[in-house]
C-alpha cells in the first residue's frame, strides 16, 4: 500500500513538471499584444490593430494611454 502511495506521489510530480513545461511552451508563442473580451479596456494607444470598437459607430472603446 505504501509503495502504491509513493509511486502515485511520484507520478503526480512527474505530471506536474510535464504540465508546467507544456503550459509555458504554449505561453511563449503568444507574444503579440492583443485585446479580447477578457480585457476590453486594454486596447493599446497608437497601435494600428483594431481592438475594441463600438459595434454601431466604430468609435474606439477603452484605449489606454501608454503604448509601448
Amino acid at each position: 500500500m505504501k509503495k502504491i502511495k509513493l509511486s502515485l506521489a511520484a507520478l503526480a510530480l512527474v505530471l506536474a513538471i510535464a504540465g508546467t513545461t507544456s503550459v509555458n511552451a504554449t505561453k511563449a508563442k503568444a507574444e503579440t499584444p492583443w485585446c479580447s473580451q477578457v480585457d476590453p479596456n486594454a486596447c493599446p494607444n497608437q497601435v494600428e490593430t483594431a481592438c475594441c470598437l463600438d459595434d454601431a459607430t466604430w468609435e474606439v472603446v477603452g484605449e489606454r494611454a501608454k503604448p509601448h
Partner: protein
Amino acid sequence: MQNKKPIVILITLFFSSFAIVGLLAFLSKNVTDKKNGFTRRLLPTILQARKRQTFPSMIYRIAGSRAGKLYLQGNNPYLVYTTNLSLDSVTSIPLSIPPDKKISSGTRQYLNGQHLYISCRNLPGIIDYDLNAQQSNNHILPYYYSKEACFSEDRFILRAKDRKTKDPVFVKIDLNIPNARQEDHFSEKKDNSIFSTDGILYYDSTTHLACYTYFYQNGFICMDTNLNVIVKGKTIDTITKREIAVAHVGSSVTMKQPPQFVNDIGAVAEGKLFLRSMLKADNELPLDFAENTVIDAYSVTNGNYIASFYIPPFKGSKPFQFHVIGKKLYAIYGKTVVEYDLPPI
C-alpha cells in the same frame, strides 16, 4: 530486496520526469521551427546604425519631413518634435490647439507642406494645423473611421463603414466638404467585420498610390487617388485568409482570441512597400528571425517581391514603428529613433 523496490521506482520516475521534460522541450522547439512553406531572398548586408537620437517622450511615428527636417509625433497631441535628417538636435513645437479630452489618445499626425494634420479617430475629425500661421482649423467628420492616409492638401483616403452593408470600405474625402465622400467599388461586402481585413493604410507620394496591407491574411492592394485598384499584390507567405473570431461585449465588438498575425507594421516610399512579416521563412535561422525584425520589400507598381532584410534590435527591443525617407530607414524604439542606411534594393 522488497524495501529496495520503492527506491528503484522513485529513481526511475525521477529520471523519466527529466526525459519527459526533455521530450516536451524538443517538441516545443520543433513547433517553433515549423516550416511555413516559403523562402526569402535575404540581403547579405546588415543594417548599421548611423545616428540615433533620444527624445524627451515616447515617439509614436514620424509625421513627415520638409525642408530637411523630420517631424515626429510623441505622446502629447499638443506638441510636435522636429530634428534634422541626421537626428542631430531636437526641437519641440507646441501646437496652439484648444484642449479637448477626445484628442488625448488615438491621434495620428501627418505632414503635408506647412499643414500638420492631426487625425482624431475618436473625435471623429481631422485638425489642420498651419505650422507657419500657427493656427488650427477643426474639420469634424460625420462618421468614425479606422485608418487614414493624406494624399494632398486637405484630401484624405479613409477606411470607414459602408452606409448600407456596414462593411469597411475606402472613402476619399475633402476636408472642406466633409459630408461628401467617394467610396471604392472593390471592397468585399460580405462579413461586416472590421477585424478580418484589418491592416494599415499608406500613401506613396512618388507613385501617388495608396497601399493597404493586411494583418491577418496574405497580400496587399494599391489604389490610385480615385480609389481604382492598380495592384493586387501577394506577400511571400502562403497564408490564405485567417478566420478571426469576433466577440460582442455589450455594445462593443472585439476579438475572441489572440489573432495570428501574417504581416505587421510597414512603410511605403519611392515605389516600394516595406512590410514586417510575422512568419519565419524556411531558409531563415530561428534565432535570426526571433531577434531581428524581418522586412520584406515589394514593388507597389507591379506587386512583385524584391528582397528581405533585418532591422536589428536596439538595446534588446524591436522597433515599434519604422519609416523610410529617401535612402534612410528610421526605426522608433520607445524614446529613441535610430537612423540606418537603407540597403540597396
